[in-house]
Each structure stands twice: as C-alpha cells, then as structure tokens.
C-alpha cells in the first residue's frame, strides 16, 4: 500500500470522469473526505453536497433520466438509510444508480460505533439483491468503470465499497 490517500482520491476521480460521470452528489464520511475534495476541485464534475442520502438518490435518478452521468458518495451509515428510496425508485423504474460507499465496520476500522455496519452492511446489500464490489487496493480502482457500466447495462443500482486501507492509506 504505497499510494498516498491524495493519489488514491485523484485516481478515483479520474476513473469516475472516464466513466462519463458529471454529477456527483455527496454526504461526507471521514474516509471519503479526500475523494469529495478531489471531486469538488475538479471542473469535470458538478459536485452537489446534499442534505441527506435520500436526496442523493433522487438527484442522481433524475439526472440519469436527463442523460447525465452521475454517482453518489456516502458512508455506510448513510446507505443504511436509503433502502426504501432505492427499492422504490431504482428498482421499480429500473433506473441505474452508482453508489460509492465506505466499508465501515470492516477490519481496520477503529470506530466502535460502526459495529452495526460491521454486522449489517453487507447482509443488507445482499438482502435487496444489490451487487457490490469491495475495492481495497489501488490496483483495483479501475473496477469502478466496470461497475458503473454494469449499472447501465442492467438498469440497476450497484455499489463500490471502499476499505479504510484504500482511502486512508496503510494498515490501521
């Protein structure tokens, strides 16, 4: 793990831009701040900080209907609040949605209050049959493009889930 977090954030931003993502809706997570800052500074994106995660789901879904590439950044806790919106909007109308999440509660997370995400994030993703790809190494960042295309090919949501090691660098 030699890549600095700033380099990782830049590579994630580059990968999103290469997908054709233009709109990025976000809510902060400590691990994601570098990515959010990189997106915010980058003229290739329209970055919209939103009031809550559900708003990001609505915003990205509408942008897709207008033919604008889009992605939503949020923490694992935020994702746990949007299940109904995803199942009602994106599953019902088959609107693709690309989410970038954090693997809170995973190995290396030293915040005890993420115990619930440790227990339930992946089971919840599985419960709604939502595909996800965990990215823990800089060399795997290119998977973002493949996952994004998957959402468009199958008209479904998909999440990329970043580990702490990737976003913060090194081993905790």
């Amino acid at each position, binding site marked *: 793990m030699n890549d600095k977090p700033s380099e990782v954030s830049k590579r994630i931003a580059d990968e999103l831009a290469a997908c054709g993502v233009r*709109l990025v809706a976000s809510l902060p997570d400590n691990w994601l701040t570098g990515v959010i800052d990189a997106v915010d500074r980058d003229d290739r994106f*329209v970055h*919209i*900080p*939103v*009031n*809550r995660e*559900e*708003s990001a*789901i*609505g*915003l*990205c*879904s*509408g*942008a*897709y*209907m*207008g*033919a*604008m590439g*889009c992605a939503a950044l949020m923490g694992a806790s935020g994702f746990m609040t949007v299940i*109904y*919106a995803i199942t*009602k*909007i994106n599953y*019902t109308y088959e609107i693709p949605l690309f989410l970038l999440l954090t693997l809170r509660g995973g190995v290396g997370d030293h915040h005890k209050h993420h115990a619930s995400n440790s227990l339930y994030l992946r089971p919840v993703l599985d419960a709604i049959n939502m595909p996800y790809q965990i990215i823990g190494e800089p060399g795997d960042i290119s998977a973002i493009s493949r996952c994004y295309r998957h959402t468009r090919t199958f008209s479904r949501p998909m999440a990329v889930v970043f580990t702490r090691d990737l976003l913060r660098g090194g081993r905790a």
Partner: protein
Amino acid sequence: MNYLDCFRALARRRTDQLVVTSAGNSSQAWWAATHDTEASFYLDASMGLSTMFASGLALARPELKIWAFMGDGAFCMNPGMLMVERQMNLPNLTHFLVSNRVYGATSNGAVLGRGAEARATALRRTGTEIPLRTLHRSSNRLRCLRISAVIRSLGS
C-alpha cells in the same frame, strides 16, 4: 375551487414543461387532470424526493422547464431539500408545494403540526423567497388546496 380543479387550472397554464409528481394526491390529481404519459413522470415514492429527482433532471437538461409537485406531507419528510435546491439555483425548476394539511393518499391523516408552521420556518431559514405568489387560496371541507409557496413563479 377544489383540489382537482386546481390541478386542472395548472394544467391549462402548462406549455412545454416536463412534470414530476410526488407520492400521494399530486400524482393522482395530475393524472386525473391530464392523463399525460409522455411528459409527466409519476415518481410516487419516496416521499420528499420528487423535487430532488426533478432537480437532477433540470440540471441535466437546462434547456427544458421542469415542474415538480410535492405535498406538505412529503415536505415534512425532507425539508432540507430546500437547501439543496437553493444551492443548485436552477432557473428551469418550479417547485410546487401543495398544502392541504393532510396525508391525502392515506385517509386524510393530519400532517404533523398541520404543516404550516414547520414549513414556513424551514422556508425562512433557507432563505427561499416565500411566497412569491399565491395562486389560489380557498377551501372546501377536506380537500382544500393552497399553493402557499412557489419557489419559482410560473412563467419566470
């Protein structure tokens, strides 16, 4: 003028706008007033997301005019949406807040605090201009319709 007549009146003023409706009565009323399937999207759920959906669409397609309807019940679910809308400042988005003070699609259960106070406070705090225009203010016994805030006035 009753609830449906108000939507019919709005439909008559519509020119080339795309319409996004919300969960609840606004979807049913807009459908009843227009039977439009080509330029209206009946979002239905989640409550409180119709204008976010419409904002994404308006951002993506600045050459189009977008109308979004939302009831006061849905508004209470996500009042912070106004902060996002103000930040995005989309000139092609019109947000209609329909205030009948009940959850009309669910047996007219009363909206929290009757909606008005919380709504007015949220609008003031976000600095949104309210009300730019009151299009109609009248009531019948249960299905009164008051469009008490129009984020962007019609035709602007």
